[in-house]
């Protein structure tokens, strides 16, 4: 939305003259009225289909706008989800292969946590969501390894699904074993697809492992990853390039095992990346990192951050110094601060902080 007054050279002035038609907006702001997918100032995607994989995991088929770039199997995309009016950013692995050629891609989401729950339960077909471009380096190497091993847990199956269907579409699926952990047989995401792939491709062998079987006979940890289990289910695992994605406990056990056996170089991991916000104790300040200026300052719990920044030698924009005018608003990069008027903790990463009426509450990073 930033107003850009076109450049000053005569040619560029003439070339950019049409932009004045929409000033101070962009022509894209009007195109998006007709079809949000035509906008160029912001990449949007339309939800064209929803499909429940299990009782609480759903695949959303998304049609991205014009400026989308094809992903690599295993990459993720950021999605902005409105939760109680606020746009929250979440990252999801693309579960469809890049070879899919109808201009759409899919994400498969488990209804856990505010953002994902809203995406699974509230977002309807026809909704438009702001998205980012595909990113991430959890991708298959080139050239392809001769043998693969996928170890996935729960909804962590999504990158493996994208990789497997991509390999199948490219007709180059190597000898692949797939250990997939899920709570029980009713909660296996992509269960039918895995069986179908195994039937039509003899070089693919999926193994389902249940950690909490529904009949309740097995003890809780029986199915969890162990060295013995790996040796039993995939004796030649040391010859395989391993791609793993799943809950943190599973990945920790895997990493430890591969380090112990000096096989770490074969292990490729993708984490869900849940940031665990540490709730600050009352009345405690913290270390304030001023990101743009590269300064670290200690601040107490009662000095407002505008003053903290000024004492560090900065001259942040400001007006009223009492929380009225919002001239001093700064983006919170990470951590948390306290609103001195209400005592409320503000820890929404990416949200605005009125630094003249906020103090450090634990460590924080500000876009200053």
């Amino acid at each position, binding site marked *: *939305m*930033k*107003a850009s*007054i076109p450049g000053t050279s005569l040619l560029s002035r003439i070339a950019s*003259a*049409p932009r*004045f*038609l929409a*000033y*101070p*907006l962009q022509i894209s*702001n*009007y195109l998006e*009225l007709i079809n949000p997918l035509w906008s160029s*100032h*912001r990449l949007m995607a339309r939800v064209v289909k929803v499909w429940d994989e299990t009782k609480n995991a759903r695949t959303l088929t998304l049609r991205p706008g014009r400026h989308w770039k094809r992903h690599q199997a295993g990459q993720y995309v950021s999605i902005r989800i*409105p939760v*109680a*009016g*606020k*746009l*929250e950013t979440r990252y999801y692995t693309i579960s469809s292969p890049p070879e899919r050629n109808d201009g759409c891609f899919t994400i498969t989401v488990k209804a856990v946590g505010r953002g994902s729950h809203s995406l699974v339960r509230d977002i309807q077909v026809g909704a438009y969501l*702001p998205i980012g471009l595909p990113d991430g380096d959890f991708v298959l190497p080139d050239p392809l390894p001769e043998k693969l091993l996928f170890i996935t847990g729960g909804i962590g199956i999504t990158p493996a699904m994208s990789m497997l269907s991509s390999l199948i579409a490219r007709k180059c699926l190597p000898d692949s074993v797939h250990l997939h952990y899920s709570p029980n047989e009713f909660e296996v995401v992509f269960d039918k697809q895995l069986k179908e792939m195994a039937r039509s491709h003899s070089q693919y062998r999926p193994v389902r492992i249940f950690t909490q079987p529904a009949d309740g006979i097995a003890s809780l940890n029986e199915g969890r990853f162990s060295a013995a289990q790996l040796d039993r289910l995939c004796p030649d695992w040391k010859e395989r390039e391993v791609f793993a994605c799943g809950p943190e406990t599973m990945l920790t056990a895997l990493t430890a095992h591969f380090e112990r056996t000096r096989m770490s170089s074969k292990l490729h991991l993708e984490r869900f990346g849940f940031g665990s916000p540490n709730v600050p104790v009352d009345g405690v300040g913290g270390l304030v990192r001023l990101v743009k200026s590269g300064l670290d300052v200690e601040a107490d719990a009662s000095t407002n951050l505008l003053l903290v920044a000024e004492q560090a030698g900065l001259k942040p924009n400001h*007006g*009223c110094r*009492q929380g*009225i*005018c*919002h*001239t001093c*608003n700064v983006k919170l990069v990470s951590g948390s601060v306290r609103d001195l*008027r*209400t005592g409320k903790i503000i820890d*929404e990463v*990416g*949200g*605005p902080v009125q630094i003249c009426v906020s103090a450090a509450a634990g460590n924080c990073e500000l876009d200053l």
Partner: protein
Amino acid sequence: MPTGRMPVRLTEAQIEEIGRELDAIRHEVIESRGDRDRRYIRNVIKTQRGLALGGRVIILASVLFLPSWGHGLASYTVFLSLLVFGAFSLGLAKIIENMEIAHNVMHAQWDWMRDEDIQSSTWEWDNVCPSAEWKVSHNYKHHTWTNVLGKDPDVGYGMLRVSPEQRWKPFYLGQPIYALVLAVFFEWAIAIQGLELGRVFSGKSSLRQIRSQVNMTLKKMGAQIMKDYVMWPFVVVALTIPFAFLGFGPAWIAVFLWVLAANAAANLFRNFWTYLIIFCGHFPGDVYVFTKKQAEEETRAGWYVRQLLASCNIRGGKLFHFLSGNLSHQIEHHLFPDLPSNRYQELAPRVRAMADRFELPYNTGSLVSQFGSTVWKILRLSFPGGKSLGMSLEFNTWNEPQESTEV
């Protein structure tokens, strides 16, 4: 109706209680912001852009009905009806953009949604005054120093005597005329006001100091002129000119000027309307003005009380509130400038009842009575004197002797 003196006698404890009550209301609204608010602002933005685009297209289409085309429907009646309709739609779009969208977005009312498209830091409005400049003169100066003589730039816009406490000068004799001129060129006046050229003339600042600000304002003005008075008329000419070469259709200069006139009418319509609403915000009837000392010694609760005493509401229906950018709830806006404007209407009864409990005035009236009162003030105060409400407010905490009221 209170006369002569401040009608409030509040103890410090009462003032602080008012502060707590209003803080609680503010907190409640902040906690309850959600999907319905997001839907509201997004729908308003969509509607506004539709109106703007629609208006431009109708203006373009109207030109095809100029009599010189010679076809069956071509007549001044059809042409002018369409042209006026298009200009009206465009003017409405500009009003909604300036009042209900931009003004409120720039107050950071919608920052909480974390929607990149709707942020106070990046919103540039359809007005010759650059947003950056507006945020300083309006959000900071006007809202912090509301009705404080010598500090609030909006007390008479440095041009009018709207309060008897402003010392009379012969210059004010002409203010009925200045007020009219201001209405016509309102957006330009606001853009120029923000530059504070007066400080340059009085030697408090130099041209060099405000150069970058002047450049920014000139650029913004240039871009707005380009859009409404060059590019759009040019586009319409470009679409009709091939026919002119074939020997029929209107002269290109006529087309250019008609479109330019329609756009000018839209801007004028917006200027008149915003002027009408904004002049009812702090000028009518018994609003109070304050001294710098009073404002400097007040607490946050005192600031709330000052906002209440310094602002006036306008009664009206839902559509009127919307078209006024909810500035018809000027009191609620001044108490809670960063709460979403669609909530002011539901807060108004609570604020009004609270004001009543503390025997504080709550200045409201119809558009006719509020604007009538403003017009009367402008006429009356162009001459010396005028009935003062008294600046020595009888706040128990504010009992200092009266300060000089010189602006």
